[in-house]
């Protein structure tokens, strides 16, 4: 795997925390990519997706993909790529015994003749309940 570090931060979220978004809202933030050595990059894709995790094979649904770079990242270079995705109303995040639905921002560098460096940074898509569960906002 090429020497590349990927960090994703969400607008308005404390570093290290998992932000929560209501269905139908917008997730935005910045994907920061730092190259330890020069890396030719066929594509740098930022995807908003959900994936299943658990006892069964992984399934996933990609909401949108942005191809933000085709070129070379030079050694020591650090670049920021802002993203903004409109979230659908479902599926909601879910944590169960045999299956979990995990939403996240996936960043992947398509690098020729090497394993692609990639990073999945989770967030929660779920409604918040107010008024003793009577109202959903």
């Amino acid at each position: 795997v090429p020497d590349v570090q990927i960090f994703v931060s969400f607008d308005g979220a404390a570093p290290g925390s998992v932000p929560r978004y209501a269905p139908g809202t917008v997730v935005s933030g910045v994907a920061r990519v730092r190259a330890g050595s020069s890396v030719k990059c066929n594509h740098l894709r930022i995807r908003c997706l959900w994936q299943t995790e658990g006892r069964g094979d992984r399934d996933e649904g990609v909401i949108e993909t942005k191809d933000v770079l085709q070129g070379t990242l030079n050694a020591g270079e650090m670049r920021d790529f802002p993203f903004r995705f409109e979230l659908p109303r479902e599926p909601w995040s879910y944590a169960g015994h045999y299956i979990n639905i995990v939403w996240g921002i996936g960043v992947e560098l398509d690098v020729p003749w090497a394993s692609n460096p990639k990073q999945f940074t989770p967030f929660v898509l779920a409604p918040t309940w107010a008024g003793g569960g009577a109202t959903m906002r």
Partner: protein
Amino acid sequence: VSDGDPFFPFHAAGLSGNPFRVLPDDELRRIAVLPAPVLAALDDPAAPHVQLLGDAGRGKSTTLLAAAARLERAGHTVGVEYLPVGTTRFTTDPSGLDVFCLDEVQRLGRWERRRLRHVAGWCRLLLGSHEDMTPLLARASRAVVTVCVGGLGPDHCRAVLAARIAYAALLGRETDHATLAPDALDWLTVRFGSDLRGAERFLYEVFQASVRTPEPVTAARLAAALARCP
């Protein structure tokens, strides 16, 4: 934006999720522990054919994927194919390949075995099989190295399980997460032997049901879990 931790019960244990969840192939390749005999065969300048033998659940497929990835990184053109249940033919066109990696070779029909024998004459093979394919490769120009994955010993099983847990560690919690205590690894070796898949399924249940802190999981805890759900 608010705290979403209730959706990530393993975060309190320093883990991104259950370390023993099913992983996709590309992630398995990243964390696979290649046994020393396989490494030696892969790096042998004579480039022998390699076959991995063993019963189901011993880690053949994962090892095969990792071996293919290693050769790919070394600059070889590698084709990988898995033969699902009921399949008797391989569909990869091996022309142009340096290495053909075929899993579940015992499922091949008679004529396909002959075709594979032909391929073995000019392309390096990495095979995963329940059945010894040495006779099939006997007339190939290369030597054949056979590694019995079920006989790699407890140290290999320990390394595989430890790699699964390390991979699940949260960023910044690499040394502060739930893990298996040394006596738990010994207990697993006695209980499951080389049946890694069985051990991983059991550990999935244990972690899912009870691991919520960064403390090591002990043998006593595993034994109690087994008693509750034999």
